[in-house]
């Protein structure tokens, strides 16, 4: 009889153990505190999707902080806008409109961005150049038209591209820190921070979020991902690198372990237009004035989101071999390439982050 009871108790014990392994009782968030994970999505900043993942005690608390973050991003959006003017602020459009006419008084944050852009231009030997606005504007016009009316999609003429490329010398951008002004000495030049603006804004906004007291969060503005701290349970964030091959069953080519690090990708598969069956992406190689066609995508991992954004654009404008050699000269920067045939290539230290 005793044995029967022992066996019964044993069985009961195993059942209880199984019950204990149910997700609810193991959920660390439930056990450690009352923090819940929330996600806020906005579509009104930088013409892309912004996602904020964070933890808060209540939804109200999270929404309140998300609103502040959105305001901050909107501020950068207005500042870097080249298409619209806003009352009470001088933005990039103002500087472009005053090219060859007069210096424009701007916010110190604009001065900081422009200085950073010049720094990145020098670091990448001009592979990312915010003074390329005139060339980018031509491609923007043709792309918009080609997307709206695919039957009539066309390529810009070499002549008009070369004419515009004659007005892209970053030395014509005169930053006067003491006076707080920016001036384009070449009247036909214009600025476009498409290759670095979002990343720079993410960096600044992430610093602002930390000032607000949030330490563990994930901020993504159009795929410029800033992973702050860890998840609430202490595990790292996971960032997927999108597979350029849309027909593949695998949504990601790689997943990255992210903790206090930024991941940014530049690719040819999302923003492009098609002319005679060939896709032309939105990233323009300063050397050819044509869309870069070296690789499908480049992803950069580094501490600073602005640097990550600038480097992903610059390295996308280089053949993989040249890009790899360049990345290896930089400290604290890792990169991954998806080549046109789908092959993956990694910088020497990337494996630390690979999942």
């Amino acid at each position: 009889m005793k044995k029967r009871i022992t066996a019964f108790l044993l069985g009961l014990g195993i059942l209880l153990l199984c019950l204990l392994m149910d997700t609810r009782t193991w959920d660390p968030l439930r056990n450690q505190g009352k923090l819940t994970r929330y996600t806020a999505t906005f579509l009104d900043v930088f013409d892309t999707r912004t996602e904020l993942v964070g933890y808060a005690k209540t939804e109200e608390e999270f929404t309140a902080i998300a609103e502040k973050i959105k305001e901050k991003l909107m501020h950068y959006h207005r500042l870097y806008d080249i298409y619209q003017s806003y009352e009470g602020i001088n933005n990039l459009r103002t500087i472009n409109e005053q090219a060859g006419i007069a210096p424009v008084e701007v916010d110190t944050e604009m001065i900081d961005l422009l200085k950073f852009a010049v720094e990145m231009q020098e670091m990448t030997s001009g592979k990312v150049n915010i003074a390329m606005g005139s060339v980018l504007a031509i491609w923007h016009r043709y792309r918009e038209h080609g997307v709206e009316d695919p039957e009539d999609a066309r390529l810009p003429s070499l002549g008009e591209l070369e004419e515009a490329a004659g007005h892209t010398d970053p030395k014509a951008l005169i930053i006067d820190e003491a006076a707080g002004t920016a001036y384009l000495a070449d009247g036909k030049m214009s600025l476009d921070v498409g290759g670095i603006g979002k990343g720079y804004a993410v960096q600044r906004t992430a610093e602002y979020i930390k000032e607000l007291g949030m330490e563990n969060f994930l901020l993504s503005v159009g795929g410029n991902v800033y992973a702050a701290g860890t998840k609430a349970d202490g595990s790292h964030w996971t960032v997927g690198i999108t597979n350029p091959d849309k027909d593949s069953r695998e949504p990601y080519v790689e997943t990255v372990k992210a903790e206090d690090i930024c991941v940014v990708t530049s690719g040819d598969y999302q923003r492009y237009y098609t002319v005679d069956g060939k896709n032309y992406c939105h990233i323009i190689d300063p050397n050819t004035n044509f869309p870069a066609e070296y690789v499908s995508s480049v992803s950069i991992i580094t501490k600073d989101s602005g640097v990550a954004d600038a480097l992903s654009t610059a390295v996308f404008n280089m053949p993989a071999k040249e890009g790899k050699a360049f990345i290896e000269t930089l400290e604290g920067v890792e990169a991954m390439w998806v080549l046109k045939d789908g092959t993956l290539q990694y910088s020497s230290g990337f494996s630390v982050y690979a999942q």
Partner: protein
Amino acid sequence: MKKTGKNDLLLIVVLLTGALIAGAGMWFARGTGTLDGVAVVTVDGEVYGRYPLKETWEERIELADGSYNYLVIKDGKADILEASCPDRICVNHRPIEKGNQSIVCLPNKLIVTVENGEVSQVDSQTY
């Protein structure tokens, strides 16, 4: 009673098997999510509709200005099959089935997300 009887052994086997099945069941339920996923569509921040993923459903989501997104719920996934937007990023997007995943149509300010259900292991993505 010094020897374990056949009945005792049988009882042990039955109980162990039962516990294993129960355990396996819970493990499985844990893996696939104990709650059924629901696709939530928002337009300009307002909830437009909720669609259980286990059902099959097709809907042309019409917006005030005449633009539209064609939503299909099938095989436990939500997908946009057609849309009036020129960039077609939402149409090109893969179907979604897990929490943390979303399809966004920027021109139409439409977002499809998944509530409940299994949560994706990936927290965010670059593109």
